Protein backbone atom coordinates (compact mmCIF):
# COMPACT_ATOMS: atom_id res chain seq x y z
CA UNK A 1 0.00 0.00 0.00
CA UNK A 2 1.08 3.59 -0.48
CA UNK A 3 1.26 4.52 3.20
CA UNK A 4 3.28 6.93 5.31
CA UNK A 5 5.82 4.20 6.11
CA UNK A 6 7.18 4.18 2.56
CA UNK A 7 9.44 7.21 2.98
CA UNK A 8 12.35 6.66 0.60
CA UNK A 9 12.96 9.82 -1.43
CA UNK A 10 10.63 12.15 0.49
CA UNK A 11 11.78 15.68 1.23
CA UNK A 12 11.29 17.99 4.17
CA UNK A 13 12.11 15.86 7.23
CA UNK A 14 15.32 17.78 7.94
CA UNK A 15 18.77 16.55 8.89
CA UNK A 16 19.63 13.29 10.64
CA UNK A 17 20.41 14.09 14.27
CA UNK A 18 22.32 11.32 16.07
CA UNK A 19 22.06 11.26 19.87
CA UNK A 20 25.20 10.86 21.97
CA UNK A 21 25.28 7.96 24.44
CA UNK A 22 21.77 6.96 23.46
CA UNK A 23 20.00 4.47 25.77
CA UNK A 24 18.38 1.39 24.20
CA UNK A 25 15.00 2.57 25.53
CA UNK A 26 14.29 6.20 26.39
CA UNK A 27 11.60 5.33 28.96
CA UNK A 28 10.46 2.16 30.74
CA UNK A 29 7.27 1.91 28.71
CA UNK A 30 9.30 1.74 25.48
CA UNK A 31 10.98 -1.45 26.68
CA UNK A 32 7.57 -2.85 27.59
CA UNK A 33 6.08 -1.87 24.23
CA UNK A 34 8.96 -3.64 22.51
CA UNK A 35 8.69 -6.75 24.70
CA UNK A 36 4.89 -7.02 24.34
CA UNK A 37 5.22 -7.00 20.59
CA UNK A 38 7.88 -9.69 20.69
CA UNK A 39 5.95 -11.89 23.08
CA UNK A 40 2.70 -11.70 21.09
CA UNK A 41 4.83 -12.78 18.13
CA UNK A 42 6.04 -15.80 20.10
CA UNK A 43 2.43 -16.57 21.02
CA UNK A 44 1.77 -16.65 17.29
CA UNK A 45 -1.39 -14.58 17.63
CA UNK A 46 -0.55 -13.07 14.22
CA UNK A 47 2.52 -12.95 12.01
CA UNK A 48 5.08 -10.19 11.55
CA UNK A 49 3.79 -9.17 8.12
CA UNK A 50 0.23 -8.78 9.38
CA UNK A 51 1.62 -6.58 12.15
CA UNK A 52 3.61 -4.49 9.66
CA UNK A 53 0.56 -4.06 7.46
CA UNK A 54 -1.49 -2.82 10.39
CA UNK A 55 1.22 -0.32 11.30
CA UNK A 56 1.59 1.08 7.80
CA UNK A 57 -2.22 1.24 7.42
CA UNK A 58 -2.44 3.98 10.04
CA UNK A 59 -3.58 7.28 8.52
CA UNK A 60 -0.41 9.20 7.51
CA UNK A 61 -0.96 12.10 9.96
CA UNK A 62 -1.25 9.64 12.85
CA UNK A 63 1.72 7.55 11.69
CA UNK A 64 3.96 10.59 11.35
CA UNK A 65 2.97 12.09 14.69
CA UNK A 66 3.67 9.04 16.82
CA UNK A 67 7.06 8.26 18.30
CA UNK A 68 8.66 4.97 17.25
CA UNK A 69 7.43 2.90 20.19
CA UNK A 70 4.23 4.93 20.31
CA UNK A 71 3.62 3.47 16.87
CA UNK A 72 4.25 -0.04 18.21
CA UNK A 73 1.85 0.39 21.12
CA UNK A 74 -0.83 1.88 18.85
CA UNK A 75 -0.45 -0.99 16.38
CA UNK A 76 -0.59 -3.57 19.16
CA UNK A 77 -3.86 -2.05 20.42
CA UNK A 78 -5.34 -2.38 16.94
CA UNK A 79 -4.09 -5.96 16.52
CA UNK A 80 -5.47 -7.04 19.90
CA UNK A 81 -8.83 -5.57 18.98
CA UNK A 82 -8.89 -7.12 15.50
CA UNK A 83 -7.86 -10.58 16.70
CA UNK A 84 -10.24 -10.57 19.65
CA UNK A 85 -7.54 -10.49 22.32
CA UNK A 86 -9.02 -7.35 23.89
CA UNK A 87 -12.21 -5.29 23.67
CA UNK A 88 -12.42 -1.49 23.41
CA UNK A 89 -13.74 -1.38 26.99
CA UNK A 90 -10.76 -3.37 28.23
CA UNK A 91 -8.34 -1.00 26.52
CA UNK A 92 -10.16 1.90 28.20
CA UNK A 93 -10.13 0.41 31.69
CA UNK A 94 -6.72 -1.22 31.38
CA UNK A 95 -7.98 -4.58 32.70
CA UNK A 96 -9.52 -7.80 31.43
CA UNK A 97 -13.29 -7.69 31.92
CA UNK A 98 -15.02 -10.97 32.82
CA UNK A 99 -16.24 -13.13 31.27
CA UNK A 100 -13.32 -13.48 28.91
CA UNK A 101 -11.61 -16.31 27.11
CA UNK A 102 -8.44 -17.35 28.86
CA UNK A 103 -5.35 -18.03 26.73
CA UNK A 104 -4.58 -21.71 26.22
CA UNK A 105 -1.22 -21.21 27.91
CA UNK A 106 1.20 -18.45 28.90
CA UNK A 107 4.40 -17.70 26.99
CA UNK A 108 7.42 -18.27 29.23
CA UNK A 109 10.76 -16.47 29.56
CA UNK A 110 12.52 -19.55 28.19
CA UNK A 111 10.44 -19.44 25.02
CA UNK A 112 11.31 -15.76 24.54
CA UNK A 113 14.99 -16.45 25.05
CA UNK A 114 14.69 -19.24 22.52
CA UNK A 115 13.01 -16.93 19.99
CA UNK A 116 15.84 -14.41 20.37
CA UNK A 117 18.67 -16.89 19.91
CA UNK A 118 17.44 -19.72 17.69
CA UNK A 119 17.45 -19.65 13.92
CA UNK A 120 14.05 -19.30 12.27
CA UNK A 121 14.81 -18.86 8.59
CA UNK A 122 12.31 -17.36 6.19
CA UNK A 123 13.60 -19.49 3.31
CA UNK A 124 11.39 -22.30 2.01
CA UNK A 125 11.69 -25.20 -0.43
CA UNK A 126 11.33 -23.96 -4.00
CA UNK A 127 8.68 -25.60 -6.15
CA UNK A 128 9.89 -24.12 -9.42
CA UNK A 129 13.21 -22.75 -10.74
CA UNK A 130 14.13 -19.08 -10.34
CA UNK A 131 13.12 -16.99 -13.36
CA UNK A 132 16.07 -14.60 -13.13
CA UNK A 133 19.81 -14.97 -12.63
CA UNK A 134 22.56 -12.63 -11.44
CA UNK A 135 23.36 -10.05 -14.11
CA UNK A 136 19.83 -10.00 -15.57
CA UNK A 137 18.25 -6.61 -16.17
CA UNK A 138 14.77 -6.45 -14.69
CA UNK A 139 12.10 -3.83 -14.24
CA UNK A 140 10.41 -3.32 -10.89
CA UNK A 141 6.72 -3.36 -11.72
CA UNK A 142 4.70 -0.19 -11.66
CA UNK A 143 2.15 -1.41 -9.13
CA UNK A 144 0.15 0.20 -6.35
CA UNK A 145 -1.63 -2.58 -4.45
CA UNK A 146 -3.88 -1.70 -1.52
CA UNK A 147 -2.46 -4.62 0.45
CA UNK A 148 0.90 -5.03 2.18
CA UNK A 149 3.91 -4.98 -0.13
CA UNK A 150 7.65 -4.56 0.32
CA UNK A 151 8.47 -2.92 -2.99
CA UNK A 152 9.16 0.73 -2.13
CA UNK A 153 7.53 3.36 -4.33
CA UNK A 154 10.85 4.89 -5.37
CA UNK A 155 11.90 1.66 -7.12
CA UNK A 156 8.65 1.01 -9.00
CA UNK A 157 8.87 1.30 -12.76
CA UNK A 158 12.68 1.44 -12.74
CA UNK A 159 15.20 -0.89 -14.35
CA UNK A 160 17.84 -2.54 -12.19
CA UNK A 161 20.24 -5.47 -12.23
CA UNK A 162 19.90 -8.69 -10.28
CA UNK A 163 23.03 -8.95 -8.11
CA UNK A 164 22.04 -11.93 -5.95
CA UNK A 165 19.54 -14.75 -5.92
CA UNK A 166 18.72 -14.93 -2.24
CA UNK A 167 16.50 -18.00 -2.22
CA UNK A 168 12.83 -18.85 -2.05
CA UNK A 169 11.32 -16.83 0.83
CA UNK A 170 7.98 -16.30 2.54
CA UNK A 171 6.09 -13.69 0.48
CA UNK A 172 4.97 -10.81 2.74
CA UNK A 173 2.22 -9.65 0.37
CA UNK A 174 0.38 -12.95 0.92
CA UNK A 175 1.63 -13.63 4.45
CA UNK A 176 0.24 -10.33 5.76
CA UNK A 177 -3.26 -11.66 5.14
CA UNK A 178 -2.31 -14.25 7.81
CA UNK A 179 -3.36 -17.10 5.57
CA UNK A 180 -0.50 -18.23 3.42
CA UNK A 181 3.30 -18.12 3.32
CA UNK A 182 3.14 -18.40 -0.48
CA UNK A 183 6.96 -18.56 -0.93
CA UNK A 184 8.52 -16.92 -3.98
CA UNK A 185 12.06 -16.40 -5.24
CA UNK A 186 13.77 -13.40 -3.67
CA UNK A 187 16.48 -11.34 -5.38
CA UNK A 188 18.68 -8.40 -4.52
CA UNK A 189 18.23 -5.87 -7.32
CA UNK A 190 20.56 -2.90 -7.73
CA UNK A 191 19.46 0.40 -9.26
CA UNK A 192 21.66 3.23 -10.45
CA UNK A 193 21.19 6.49 -8.50
CA UNK A 194 20.69 8.41 -11.73
CA UNK A 195 18.04 5.97 -12.97
CA UNK A 196 16.06 6.34 -9.76
CA UNK A 197 16.37 10.07 -9.19
CA UNK A 198 17.25 11.49 -12.62
CA UNK A 199 19.57 14.48 -12.74
CA UNK A 200 18.98 15.02 -9.00
CA UNK A 201 20.54 11.63 -8.23
CA UNK A 202 24.13 11.00 -7.20
CA UNK A 203 25.89 9.35 -10.17
CA UNK A 204 28.31 7.60 -7.81
CA UNK A 205 25.53 5.93 -5.82
CA UNK A 206 23.48 2.79 -6.28
CA UNK A 207 20.51 1.58 -4.23
CA UNK A 208 19.53 -2.06 -3.89
CA UNK A 209 16.26 -3.53 -2.70
CA UNK A 210 15.38 -7.13 -1.89
CA UNK A 211 12.56 -7.94 -4.28
CA UNK A 212 10.39 -11.04 -4.70
CA UNK A 213 9.83 -12.42 -8.19
CA UNK A 214 6.21 -11.16 -8.46
CA UNK A 215 7.60 -7.59 -8.11
CA UNK A 216 9.80 -7.96 -11.19
CA UNK A 217 9.38 -8.26 -14.93
CA UNK A 218 11.81 -9.28 -17.64
CA UNK A 219 13.00 -6.56 -19.99
Amino acid sequence: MNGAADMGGMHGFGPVVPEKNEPVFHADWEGHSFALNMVTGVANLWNIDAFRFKRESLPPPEYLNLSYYGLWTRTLELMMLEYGVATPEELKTGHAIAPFKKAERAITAAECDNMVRCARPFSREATEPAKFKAGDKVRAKNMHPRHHTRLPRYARGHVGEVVRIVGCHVFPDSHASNRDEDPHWLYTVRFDGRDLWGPDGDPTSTVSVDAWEPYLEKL
Partner: protein
Amino acid sequence: MEHDRHDDHASELSDMQLRTRALETILLEKGYIEPAAIDVLIETYEKKIGPRNGAQVVAKAWVDSKFRQWLFEDGTAAIATLGFGGRSGNHLVALENTPAVHNMTVCTLCSCYPWAVLGLPPLWYKSAPYRSRAVADPRGVLKDFGVDLPKDTEIRVWDSTAELRYLVVPMRPAGTEGWSEEKLADLVTRDSMIGTGFPKNPGDAS
Protein backbone atom coordinates in the same frame (compact mmCIF):
# COMPACT_ATOMS: atom_id res chain seq x y z
CA MET B 1 8.21 27.13 21.88
CA GLU B 2 10.70 25.13 23.89
CA HIS B 3 8.20 24.93 26.70
CA ASP B 4 5.35 23.79 24.41
CA ARG B 5 7.46 21.10 22.87
CA HIS B 6 8.43 19.80 26.27
CA ASP B 7 4.79 19.61 27.33
CA ASP B 8 3.77 17.74 24.19
CA HIS B 9 6.53 15.25 24.76
CA ALA B 10 5.63 14.76 28.40
CA SER B 11 1.94 14.22 27.67
CA GLU B 12 2.69 11.61 25.02
CA LEU B 13 4.94 9.91 27.53
CA SER B 14 2.31 9.52 30.20
CA ASP B 15 -0.42 8.63 27.67
CA MET B 16 1.73 5.93 26.07
CA GLN B 17 2.89 4.72 29.44
CA LEU B 18 -0.72 4.14 30.48
CA ARG B 19 -1.76 2.57 27.18
CA THR B 20 1.22 0.24 27.12
CA ARG B 21 0.57 -0.78 30.72
CA ALA B 22 -3.08 -1.45 29.84
CA LEU B 23 -2.05 -3.88 27.08
CA GLU B 24 0.39 -5.64 29.35
CA THR B 25 -2.14 -5.99 32.16
CA ILE B 26 -4.79 -7.42 29.84
CA LEU B 27 -2.34 -9.94 28.37
CA LEU B 28 -1.21 -10.99 31.86
CA GLU B 29 -4.74 -11.24 33.26
CA LYS B 30 -5.88 -13.35 30.34
CA GLY B 31 -2.92 -15.64 30.76
CA TYR B 32 -1.14 -14.99 27.45
CA ILE B 33 2.25 -14.29 29.02
CA GLU B 34 4.30 -14.86 32.13
CA PRO B 35 5.69 -11.63 33.63
CA ALA B 36 9.25 -13.01 33.42
CA ALA B 37 8.92 -13.21 29.63
CA ILE B 38 8.71 -9.40 29.45
CA ASP B 39 11.69 -8.96 31.75
CA VAL B 40 13.93 -11.34 29.84
CA LEU B 41 13.28 -9.57 26.53
CA ILE B 42 14.02 -6.11 27.92
CA GLU B 43 17.14 -7.30 29.70
CA THR B 44 18.44 -9.16 26.66
CA TYR B 45 18.39 -6.11 24.40
CA GLU B 46 19.43 -3.63 27.10
CA LYS B 47 22.36 -5.63 28.39
CA LYS B 48 23.29 -8.68 26.32
CA ILE B 49 22.86 -8.14 22.60
CA GLY B 50 24.46 -5.02 21.13
CA PRO B 51 27.16 -3.70 18.79
CA ARG B 52 29.90 -5.50 20.76
CA ASN B 53 28.72 -8.62 18.94
CA GLY B 54 29.22 -7.06 15.53
CA ALA B 55 32.57 -5.58 16.56
CA GLN B 56 33.76 -9.09 17.37
CA VAL B 57 32.68 -10.28 13.90
CA VAL B 58 34.45 -7.40 12.16
CA ALA B 59 37.65 -7.76 14.19
CA LYS B 60 37.79 -11.45 13.33
CA ALA B 61 37.27 -10.64 9.64
CA TRP B 62 40.22 -8.22 9.86
CA VAL B 63 42.67 -10.82 11.18
CA ASP B 64 41.41 -14.14 9.83
CA SER B 65 41.28 -14.27 6.02
CA LYS B 66 39.44 -17.62 5.94
CA PHE B 67 36.73 -16.31 8.24
CA ARG B 68 36.56 -13.13 6.19
CA GLN B 69 35.94 -15.04 2.98
CA TRP B 70 33.31 -17.21 4.66
CA LEU B 71 31.61 -14.13 6.15
CA PHE B 72 31.11 -12.64 2.70
CA GLU B 73 30.00 -15.97 1.20
CA ASP B 74 27.64 -17.07 3.98
CA GLY B 75 27.30 -14.47 6.72
CA THR B 76 24.67 -16.41 8.65
CA ALA B 77 26.86 -19.51 9.01
CA ALA B 78 30.00 -17.49 9.75
CA ILE B 79 28.48 -15.46 12.61
CA ALA B 80 26.92 -18.60 14.06
CA THR B 81 30.45 -19.85 14.85
CA LEU B 82 30.77 -16.87 17.22
CA GLY B 83 27.42 -17.71 18.81
CA PHE B 84 25.42 -15.02 16.99
CA GLY B 85 22.20 -15.43 15.03
CA GLY B 86 18.50 -15.90 15.65
CA ARG B 87 16.09 -13.01 15.72
CA SER B 88 16.97 -10.43 13.02
CA GLY B 89 20.07 -12.38 12.11
CA ASN B 90 18.50 -15.35 10.32
CA HIS B 91 19.80 -14.23 6.93
CA LEU B 92 22.91 -12.13 7.45
CA VAL B 93 24.71 -10.52 4.53
CA ALA B 94 28.11 -8.91 5.19
CA LEU B 95 29.14 -6.03 2.93
CA GLU B 96 32.79 -5.28 2.25
CA ASN B 97 34.03 -1.69 2.30
CA THR B 98 37.08 -1.11 0.09
CA PRO B 99 38.96 2.04 -0.99
CA ALA B 100 36.63 2.16 -4.04
CA VAL B 101 33.28 1.10 -2.51
CA HIS B 102 31.45 2.34 0.60
CA ASN B 103 28.35 0.47 1.80
CA MET B 104 25.51 1.94 3.81
CA THR B 105 22.33 0.26 5.10
CA VAL B 106 18.82 1.55 5.68
CA CYS B 107 15.24 0.36 6.05
CA THR B 108 13.13 2.97 4.25
CA LEU B 109 9.92 1.08 5.12
CA CYS B 110 10.52 1.01 8.88
CA SER B 111 13.44 -0.21 10.97
CA CYS B 112 14.83 -3.59 9.84
CA TYR B 113 18.29 -3.89 11.37
CA PRO B 114 20.66 -6.78 12.21
CA TRP B 115 19.71 -7.13 15.89
CA ALA B 116 21.77 -10.30 16.30
CA VAL B 117 25.01 -8.39 15.73
CA LEU B 118 24.12 -4.74 16.49
CA GLY B 119 21.27 -4.93 18.99
CA LEU B 120 18.28 -2.62 18.58
CA PRO B 121 18.71 0.33 16.22
CA PRO B 122 19.34 3.90 17.40
CA LEU B 123 16.52 6.41 17.07
CA TRP B 124 18.07 8.18 14.08
CA TYR B 125 18.11 4.94 12.08
CA LYS B 126 14.33 4.62 12.54
CA SER B 127 13.67 8.31 11.94
CA ALA B 128 12.03 9.91 8.91
CA PRO B 129 15.09 12.04 8.03
CA TYR B 130 17.34 8.98 7.66
CA ARG B 131 14.75 6.73 6.00
CA SER B 132 13.74 9.38 3.47
CA ARG B 133 17.21 10.63 2.51
CA ALA B 134 19.58 7.66 2.74
CA VAL B 135 18.46 6.32 -0.65
CA ALA B 136 18.22 9.63 -2.54
CA ASP B 137 21.02 11.66 -0.99
CA PRO B 138 23.49 9.33 0.74
CA ARG B 139 26.34 11.85 0.63
CA GLY B 140 24.15 14.49 2.26
CA VAL B 141 23.24 12.03 5.03
CA LEU B 142 26.89 11.12 5.54
CA LYS B 143 27.66 14.83 5.96
CA ASP B 144 25.17 14.91 8.86
CA PHE B 145 27.49 12.37 10.49
CA GLY B 146 30.59 14.41 9.62
CA VAL B 147 31.62 11.82 7.05
CA ASP B 148 33.04 13.11 3.80
CA LEU B 149 33.95 10.44 1.22
CA PRO B 150 36.19 11.06 -1.80
CA LYS B 151 34.15 12.22 -4.81
CA ASP B 152 34.83 9.09 -6.84
CA THR B 153 34.02 6.55 -4.11
CA GLU B 154 31.05 4.42 -5.15
CA ILE B 155 28.32 4.44 -2.51
CA ARG B 156 26.14 1.35 -2.34
CA VAL B 157 22.98 1.82 -0.32
CA TRP B 158 21.19 -1.37 0.75
CA ASP B 159 17.48 -1.00 1.57
CA SER B 160 16.45 -3.87 3.90
CA THR B 161 13.08 -4.65 2.32
CA ALA B 162 13.04 -8.41 3.11
CA GLU B 163 14.33 -10.58 5.98
CA LEU B 164 17.97 -10.18 4.92
CA ARG B 165 19.95 -8.19 7.45
CA TYR B 166 23.04 -6.30 6.37
CA LEU B 167 26.30 -5.78 8.27
CA VAL B 168 28.91 -3.40 6.87
CA VAL B 169 32.51 -4.55 7.37
CA PRO B 170 34.56 -1.34 7.46
CA MET B 171 38.20 -1.15 6.38
CA ARG B 172 40.78 -1.94 9.03
CA PRO B 173 42.45 1.24 10.27
CA ALA B 174 46.11 1.74 9.37
CA GLY B 175 48.64 1.39 12.17
CA THR B 176 46.98 -1.64 13.78
CA GLU B 177 49.37 -4.31 12.50
CA GLY B 178 49.82 -7.11 15.00
CA TRP B 179 46.86 -6.04 17.18
CA SER B 180 44.78 -8.73 18.86
CA GLU B 181 41.15 -9.30 17.86
CA GLU B 182 40.05 -8.03 21.25
CA LYS B 183 41.97 -4.77 20.88
CA LEU B 184 40.77 -4.32 17.31
CA ALA B 185 37.14 -4.84 18.36
CA ASP B 186 37.44 -1.74 20.57
CA LEU B 187 37.98 0.33 17.41
CA VAL B 188 34.82 -0.90 15.68
CA THR B 189 31.95 1.55 16.18
CA ARG B 190 28.26 0.81 15.69
CA ASP B 191 27.99 3.47 12.97
CA SER B 192 30.93 1.98 11.05
CA MET B 193 28.88 -1.25 10.78
CA ILE B 194 25.83 0.66 9.47
CA GLY B 195 27.97 2.63 7.04
CA THR B 196 27.45 6.09 8.53
CA GLY B 197 30.85 6.22 10.22
CA PHE B 198 34.36 4.82 10.36
CA PRO B 199 36.17 2.75 12.97
CA LYS B 200 38.14 4.70 15.57
CA ASN B 201 41.81 5.43 14.89
CA PRO B 202 44.40 3.44 16.85
CA GLY B 203 45.21 6.56 18.90
CA ASP B 204 41.55 6.83 20.04
CA ALA B 205 41.32 3.28 21.42
CA SER B 206 39.71 3.28 24.83
